[in-house]
């Protein structure tokens, strides 16, 4: 039986850089309002936050769960309807 988690965890480290942001935005767009995923990265993805604020204004909440030094975990939620 497949092992499943309560969280959707998107670890973007193994994803080639050119695919990272499209993958993250596609994952966000697939969420229903009120849902979230946890982004895992090897550096602070703050430029991504600015991109979210610009491209999905008012739809994203951004909560750091871990801030380095090796891993950053960010809970990215889609605003409720």
């Amino acid at each position, binding site marked *: *039986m*497949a*092992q*499943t*988690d*309560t*969280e*959707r*965890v*998107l*670890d*973007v*480290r*193994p*994803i*080639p*850089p*050119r*695919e*990272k*942001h*499209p*993958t*993250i935005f*596609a*994952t966000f767009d*697939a969420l229903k309002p009120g849902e979230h*995923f946890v982004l895992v990265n*090897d*550096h602070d*993805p703050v*430029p*991504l936050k600015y*991109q979210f604020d610009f491209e999905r204004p008012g739809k994203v909440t951004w909560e750091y769960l871990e801030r380095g030094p*090796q*891993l950053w975990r960010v809970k990215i939620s889609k605003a409720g309807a």
Partner: protein
Amino acid sequence: MRLLLSSETLPGASPEELRQACRQRALAGLEVQASQIYTTMSSDAVLEPYAGIAWLRLPETITTRELALWADVAARGGVGLLLSKAVDSIPEGVPVALIHRTDLDEAREAVTWAKRHGAGTCWEVTPGDRDRVFDETFGTLVHVRLPGSGPEADEPTSAGTGALIARLAMARYAGTVSLIPSAGVDPALWRRWLLEQRGWGCGTAAEKAARRSAA
């Protein structure tokens, strides 16, 4: 989802080198080829140097006796066994998964075998219809062997990695994914990348570079 490192990325590496590579890249543990472990130690201690090992990958050809011996080692070390070929009966007390590639027939056979034996499946990602194989196998999937990451980010083998990782995330996959080298990739590439200080690569930087080259 937990990211692991396959020992195939560092052929001939010592257990300490493998551990160092895991630490360097903040990986959760190891998948080790049984053929890399040569020891005369007692089965209690065989895997001790490989702290953090999650899976032991067995060779394609293995006798029933060898399988029982490795199962004893794995059980004592608290790790699982990856089988390259189906066997008639599996050992008790140890997680077992059968490897298949991105081939629908092969995947279906692995799922059937896994269900019959109460085991799992391990998907070795190769070119093919990933979506259909995902749909077919997710119910038994416990481990993924993923080529094309890390130093292979610019290689054709890396294409589609994002879509696969996203599907695993959306399905709330909580199993393991090990980074493996693609066939034919220079081992020195992985060695340098695993032991150097640089990061994995930034999506923002990649987008800026793409815009510059398009201008």
